């Protein structure tokens, strides 16, 4: 953790904020403050230099054009690579997840990714739109993932990353696995404010960022109700 406060950088809200991506920054900041940590949220637009000394970097979802542009600018900037080398946490969602890999497709063209995660994305036979659920890698010690996905990509994981979850509903990477993680980098197709439905995942990112083994519990009544309701809805849709 940087010295005075937890620094959260929201990368390129002008490009990568298609649906409520701001939520993840708000949720992390609030959960940190509720534990008494001072927090600074920095929004870095695509015409600005990325600071290399933050604790958590958030990369959100976006349309094809902005996704390709975002990847280009992040490659040219180099700040995210420096931050990762120094042990910062990166959380990528949807288009932001894809661009952490080696390559992805936007507007029918293969684009170079940031090569921070060993994965590549191409186009699937159909768009994946709907509820997404899965059992998270037991090593992360988290309750099941719940979210909403909306993407046309299929993502193929290489040997250096682990799937975030095994899919129980929806498509995720390919219908079998969903998302990926390595070290303190984590990506998911659960789009937009993914952490709203997954407060334990938010706390994992905070623990990675602060080095804390445990964080004081918070009142998650409403998130729990939302999680239960979504789980029932997914089960009902399958029955």
């Amino acid at each position, binding site marked *: 953790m940087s010295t005075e406060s937890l620094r959260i950088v929201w990368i390129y*809200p002008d490009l990568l904020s*298609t649906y*409520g991506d701001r*939520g993840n920054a*708000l949720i992390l900041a609030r959960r940190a403050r509720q534990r008494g940590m001072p927090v600074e949220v920095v929004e870095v637009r695509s015409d600005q230099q990325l600071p290399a000394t933050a604790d958590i970097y958030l990369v959100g979802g976006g349309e094809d054009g902005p996704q390709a542009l975002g990847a280009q600018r992040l490659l040219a900037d180099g700040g995210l690579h420096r931050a990762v080398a120094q042990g910062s946490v990166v959380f990528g969602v949807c288009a932001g997840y894809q661009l952490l890999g080696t390559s992805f497709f936007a507007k029918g063209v293969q684009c170079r990714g940031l090569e921070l995660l060993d994965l590549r994305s191409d186009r699937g036979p159909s768009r994946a*739109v709907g509820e997404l659920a899965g059992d998270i890698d037991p090593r992360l010690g988290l309750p099941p993932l719940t979210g909403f996905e909306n993407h046309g990509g299929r993502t193929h994981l290489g040997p250096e990353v682990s799937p975030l979850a095994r899919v129980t509903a929806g498509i995720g990477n390919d219908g079998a696995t969903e998302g990926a993680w390595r070290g303190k980098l984590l990506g998911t197709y659960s789009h937009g*404010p993914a952490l*709203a439905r997954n407060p334990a995942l938010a706390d994992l990112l905070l623990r990675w960022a602060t080095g804390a083994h445990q964080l004081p519990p918070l009142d998650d009544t*409403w998130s729990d109700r939302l999680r239960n309701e979504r789980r029932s809805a997914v089960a009902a849709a399958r029955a």
Partner: protein
Amino acid sequence: MPLRAKVASSVSRTAAALSRAAGRGDGSVIGGWIGLKIDPDLLAHLSAGRAIALVSGTNGKTTTTRLTSAAVGVLGRVATNSFGANMPSGHTSALAKAGSTPYAVLEVDEHYLAQVLEATEPHVVALLNLSRDQLDRAKEVAMMAQLWRAALVRHTDVRVVANADDPMVVWAATPPGDPARGINPPHVTWFSAGQRWHDDSWVCPECGSTIQRSGEQWWCTGCPLRRPEPQWVVEDEGVLDPTGAWHKVSLQLPGRVNLGNAATALAVAAEFGVRPVDAVSRLGIVTSVAGRYAQVDKDGRNIRLLLAKNPASWLEAFDMADEAPTLLSINARDPDGLDTSWLFDVDFAPLRGRQVLITGDRAYDLAVRLDINDVPFQHVRTFDDAIRSVPPGRLEVIANYTAFQDIRAELDRVN
């Protein structure tokens, strides 16, 4: 009109009447749907010989269509799809029952604008705004702007009335002509209605550079795209027309956004030769639009209904609502979009200090959002519970599409 079209038109009217009589609907879609099955060109046949205005955009279509109909009404009877049935079946129904009415003002779903331009060959098309809306089934904003632009290239004779404050609309409304082939770009009249929502237009649709804003001005940092000088402008409680004359606008509809809609209506009516001085008083007759802005007195509460379907329209709703107890209701059924992520694009902070109640299928999504936004709230199961939970006086209700319709049904389908 060819015989087939006559038969189709007649069957269409009958089906609409049956639908209404059976209590199955307001008949604004089913009649047109049947008519189009009999004669796929029915909409084109019904449009022939009429002076038509189309109104499209993400937000404000229904209200602007209503205000425009009122303004054009200076000239005589106006056909319109006033129930918000804004796809070709709705247009067909509206025109089939309109008889020989010489004018029509039609609200058009933004996805169908190209198709309806083709079928109706309108005199004017009004382009209001483009912002994110139900991305799980709708087109992304940049793709939508591209579709509009491509459609206008094929209809360079149409008069365009467009929003100078929305970069995506400005770009869509100004396709390049092709002077070598004698194709000129369409004639555009610009209005300025203000725009609270900017989060879908930071990137230039023409060149991908950043769009800068300062006050009401905006410009692309990489190409010549910039805010055009508007001819119709909202100023104070009125509208400045292209001659510089100011007209006081006394609406029964709340909010600055409706002053903008009024400016648009006057600009469209002017394309039919209606002077704003003649039209402006007619705008005040519009009290509510298919339940939107309707006020109902029940159990000592004065309930006002506000529809808000996407982030841009929520921002406008907070501006319209009084400082009073407020019920928020959210569903995520098919017409709403299945995804509630957009709740995090809305800053609910303006509600702090008001008594906030929440309900609807997806009240828990809203609960999590409000919790993170530090807005205290109370969850209620039913609309009646909500009414009982607030003191006598004004209750503002802000709801998205099907949640709005549910509450409207509780209030005897108030219009």
